[in-house]
């Protein structure tokens, strides 16, 4: 099936098998390998991307054809004009990652979380990230990373084109 999807602000027209998952479409058709796959049950969240600038979706639960006509943002779309997004800066500064495998999904979920709730409490961050698993960090520094990003974005709002 032919689909047209805007990813990180760029429009792609592609022919895909109807059963292709969005995660594999992004990874294998578009070469955007920052979106990962870690389980078979939509449990782990390493594949989370942003749909239409407002929803964090597990891209292994969505078919590529369902993204036809929609806008997707992946981890590769977070840097704007060569400048790290405050979330990226926060994860780096606060040691919010170790192996890095969950990191893209964590950041995409956090991006939506901060859009909906620019000044979340620790409990709200923990609640918001509870669909994303991490085996390395114990989440504590991830929470700090999101807090740092929230503070930075409050003082200097960031434009991100989904």
């Amino acid at each position, binding site marked *: 099936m032919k689909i047209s999807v805007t990813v990180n602000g760029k429009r792609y027209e592609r022919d895909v098998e109807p059963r292709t998952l969005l995660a594999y479409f992004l990874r294998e058709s578009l070469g955007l390998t*920052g979106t*990962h796959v870690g*389980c078979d049950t939509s449990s782990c969240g390493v594949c989370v991307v942003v749909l239409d600038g407002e929803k964090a979706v597990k891209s292994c639960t969505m078919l590529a054809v369902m993204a036809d006509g929609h806008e997707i943002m992946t981890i590769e779309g977070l840097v704007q004009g060569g400048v790290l997004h405050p979330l990226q800066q926060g994860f*780096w500064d606060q040691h919010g*990652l170790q*192996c*890095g495998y969950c*990191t893209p999904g964590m950041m995409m979920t956090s991006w939506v979380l901060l859009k909906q709730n620019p000044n979340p409490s620790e409990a709200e961050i923990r609640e918001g990230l*509870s*669909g994303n698993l991490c085996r390395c960090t114990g989440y504590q520094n991830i929470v700090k990373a999101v807090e740092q990003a929230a503070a930075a974005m409050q003082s200097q709002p960031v434009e991100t084109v989904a």
Partner: protein
Amino acid sequence: MSTTIEPTPTPERHAMGKSMKRKEDPRFIRGHGRYLDDFTLPGMLWMSLVHSPYPHARIVKIDKTAALAVPGVVAVLTGEDLAAHNLAWIPTFHGYDKQMVLAVGKVLYQYQEVAGVIASSREIAQDAAELVDVEYEPLDPVVNPFQSRDDKIILRDDRENKTNHIYHWEVGKREETDAAIAASDVSIKERIVFQRCHPAPLEPCGILADMNPATGRLTLYLTSQAPHAHRTVVSLVTGIPEDKIHVISPDLGGGFGNKVPVYPGYVVSAAASVVLGVPVKWIETRTENLTTTGFARDYHMDVEIGASKDGRVTALKVATVADHGAFDAAADPTKYPAGLFGIVTGSYDFPTAFTELDAYFTNKAPGGVAYRCSFRVTEASFAIERGMELLARKLNMDPSELRLLNFVKKEQFPYPSPLGFVYDSGDYHMTLRKALDMIGYEDLRKEQAEKRERGELMGIGISTFTEAVGAGPSKHFDIMGIKMFDSAEIRVHPTGSAILRAGTKSQGQGHETTWAQIAAEELGLDPQNIMVEEGDTDTAPYGLGTYASRSTPVAGAAIAMASRKIREKARKIAAHLLEAAVDDVEWTNYKFQVKGQPDHALTMQEIAFAAYTNPAPDSEPGLEATYYYDPPNLTFPYGAYIAVVDVDRETGAVKVRRFLAIDDCGTVINPMVVEGQIHGGLTEGFAIAFMQEIVYDESGNNLNTNFTEYLVPTSLETPHWETSSTCTPSPHHPIGAKGVGESPNVGSPAAFVNAVMDALAPLGVQHIDMPLTREKVWHACRQAATA
């Protein structure tokens, strides 16, 4: 070659001991990490495995016809096909057993690999795998090691000895220990089970095998914690010369021991690539990960401790039954079938001890990997720390007092343990006292007493573990004969930057940062300009890889020693440039100077330039060194952990209110990285204590085959971690470091369980095996209420 060891200058350190931000992070935070599944090659095919639905069955026949008829399917391989290439079986890392790659004759566990389908896409391979028609004749399974002990059903008829018993291992003094326990005023005995669990890194295992018919070289992109060991194993098993094998272990999305063994999916893919002459990729599914690759633990331990009535321990005895599954695939050093289980005397000065272990085959997946621990140290630490808690209760003594009374004392180091180790250093009293102070132990006990008056269940659990890590000295430690040294190669470039390569492989530990910090500290260079490379067997010096907390104790030492070799050469160049005798040149404040003349000093950067532009006469130009480090001993990191929990007796819910971890891992290279690893290890320990177990039902069905059944804690359940440290450097390690990544996973399960048992003490509950699920705790509360 001898190398001078100079004391590292203090107090203001140049690069070590600093929380430097990680150098590897810029690519990860941009989504530019390169993990195995990110690699694709032109003409690449996909491999998918066919798994057995039965735990024990004879294979009557395998019909490939329907699978081969699917457009896009290139080949279907079975055990018989592999047998033609002598690849149906491969040796296990242990060296004492072999394991099937694809089942031949019969299957021995549910999900065992039976066939491999090679096709043009992931999806076609998966679809066709379902069409491989395997006819089975089910056999009675044995899923309990106590049942397999009676040998009524022999699982491994391929072996000469018709028994399910794999080996017996023992160390210590049996009679003396038995007599001492019998003569003790007080003793405890408890069966303590460390359940079967799984490392479950978020990135599953995988391979991209690329046989190049033009060059005759086999390149293996592999999720490997030990790329050199894997290259050697592939060469030994296949006969392909080692120079024709290139293992590349790219960014790893976690490992935790799961990525040490060689798995059937690797072998089938590599064999297919060799036969077909095209690249073949296999990425395991989460179900394959949890059901077939590298489980951990599964030790049933009978723990006995004797003590005098005033609480001095007299003897320790631990007898273990180990469930190894269908093959003895535990990745332990050759001479240590039960790993370093002999650390089971822990932090305590036992006059005598004895431990023995019997391992059995069952119809369960093979493994027994060192999951975020040095070989079997986690099981041992859990046994002793639970045992000490039970003893404290029997003596009606505070568990912290019992520990303080029996700790090995600071002045006893180096301490020869009754089971054969020589502990390098420690001050257990200092570390526990710090923990008790920091958590406000006395106040917590008061609060607990008040709550008990009101019928509320609050518990405080202590774990003061000692690990044995950093395998290891070559006179004792090898894997398949290869000694467990490790290596580093450092090349300083003319402008004073450098490349550092090591035989280890980071899976998130941050070696690109910490290795650079060690070299920068030793050489006075900028760690930002020391590039660290690992995981490519064509370029890195030979090493045994990263597991068992061995990277810093072994490769970290190699990096320091290689740096010191460079420094010695640099001293000669400095002498030439400063027109001074070599003996008159000293290394002070990260510079070479003529003794007592700080204004006649040269930086390493200046010397590096001279090494290429103005080398000393009669000396070899350039500035580089390689060092293979054979550690003189293991290192013995330790810690004092305290958990505080509240238990709701109506629901069985346990709330971990506080958790304090004080770790002593000797010299710290990067405090931020150490703290991060402790957070992660505690979270894995928390998961094991409360949530995780690979359960097989009586028919041999695996009940925990994905993340909806094998739970990983989320940000919601995970407690807030409090951390601190003490520092007793290892006296035998060049920089005094001991390794830390695994301590929190080793030490924390006992703290959690001790805390919950302490909470349940008023109900008379003595012991519950992990995981302490809500259901189990609730049942324990109910039983107490109705008793």
